[in-house]
């Protein structure tokens, strides 16, 4: 299962990472080298073995979504890149999706 340049561009788009052509090409080689080592797992007999979902004795417990918000030591405006009237500001959404990249 070799990774191609198209694969790298596709997963970079999914991960919202912009890559130069040179970097994308070098990542093809890097990921293939790493994934070659992973192929050893395909030879392991795992029939009847449940995949681990949570490593603790209690699986993956959820805490109750209740209680007051945790007080913050400083206002969001002090660390947010851009805020107005209590809202985080982002660029216009009309340019959010390129239909081709999203397909």
């Amino acid at each position, binding site marked *: *299962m070799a990774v191609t340049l198209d694969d790298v561009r596709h997963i970079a788009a999914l991960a919202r990472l912009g890559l130069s052509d040179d970097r994308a090409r070098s990542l093809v080689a890097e990921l293939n080298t790493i994934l070659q080592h992973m192929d050893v797992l395909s030879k392991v007999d795992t029939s009847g073995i449940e995949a681990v979902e949570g490593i603790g004795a209690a699986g993956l417990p959820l805490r109750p979504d209740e209680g007051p918000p945790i007080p913050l030591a400083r206002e969001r405006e002090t660390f947010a890149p851009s805020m107005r009237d209590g809202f985080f500001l982002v660029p216009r959404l009309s340019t959010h999706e390129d239909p081709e990249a999203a397909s």
Partner: protein
Amino acid sequence: MTPNDRAAIGALSAAELRDRVAAGDVSPRSAAEASLDRASEIGAWRDGLNILLYENRDDARRQAEDVARRRERGDAGSLAGVPVILKDNIATTSLPTSCGSRILEGYVSPYDATVAQRLRAAGAVIVAKSNMDEFAMGSSTENSAFGPAKNPLAPARVPGGSSGGSAASVAAGLVRIALGSETGGSVRQPAAFCGVVGVKPTYGRVSRYGLVAFASSLDQVGVFGRSVDDAALGLHTIAGLDPLDSTSAAEPVPMYRDAARGSLTGVVIGRPKEYFPDDLDPRIRDKCDASLAVLESLGAEVREVTLPHTHLAIEVYYIVAPAEASSNLARFDGVRYGLRLEGDGLRGMYEATRSSGFGPEVTRRILLGTYVLSAGYYDAYYRKAQQVRALIARDFADVFKSGVHLLFTPTTPTPAFELGAKSDPYEMYLSDIFTCTANLAGVPAMSLPIGRVDGLPVGGQFIANHFDERQMFAAAYALERQLGAGAHA
């Protein structure tokens, strides 16, 4: 304060310093200043060893004065006046939390991590934040966006990683206790490279609230100590249930320092053959076997055991951890905190911010994780890795069920390597070969110095069953006593 006073303070264990502070013989402020002065003297900052990233002397002084007032009220705390250093991925309101990354450069958290709160509540004084591999992805602290850290024992070599700055801080005598974090060995491996003690608690033993997430099914806050006793005191302070972290466990927290008096008679210690392969450096094998002989002489029974899926651990780890990281690091998008770079619309902003903010190793792992989770590859990689992980966890369960109380292994296959020595990512990943199994199985483990090879420290590793850290500490105290201080940094 004279240099002699500072030297005297530096020579005290955490418990001794705490007692001297409680008795009024040492002021918390002197202890904090001694720590920061020593950091400057040895060149711990970015233009030197680069093991520390941030300090705030005014805040350290305020914390120290608060501890002094508490002492006068008779409420000094179990770590009264003990200076501590935290890895740069543990949220603190008084110092930046940048995870060794440009994407969070200058970010100061609006809340303290639970472990930071617990340290402060116990009277500890947080004096600095330490350098680390970016987002804890690395085994050498060379992946920091703020430059590589150097091993204070051998500055041409790495301190290990990803918590290399914290390990090096303890080794250099800046503090007796420091916190790091573990995902695949990031406390134990640098502890071994720097000649200090490093503990990875059971998954769930310590709250991760405020630990910036890397791989959530593996991450755990860990403790460095100059000695086993320092580490025991540190772990006891931060361990225990936290309602803010649903994965933290309601298990009672024993007084780990009581384990110092424990006997090893009747304790069965397994020597897993997979951790002693034929190509292991014979000098490291000899150090481990000499330690096992010491443990035997103290009454332990040493038994050869097998953990047959060990050879698959690196492959499993480097699928599971990047997969979880690709999800966890999606939050760094330039919207709520950290770096923002403008691009073409919202998507362009995301891509520009993340491409510029993340370094090469983080980018590689996000892409690897996205790939193994993507349609068509999920079953072959991620699901398969989670199944093999179950087999690795079963290996540990079987061996502990057979009557073995502890395992003893080398912590790392080699001592600290030279800066720049490992350019191939997979070769670097192999540094975690003896440590990542404990993270995959969720069991506790610790490294302690067991000697030197070519003047460089060698770490020996104890691994225990879930929530049995006390047993691990008992053996570590006993071994440390026999080996003496010479094995330490």
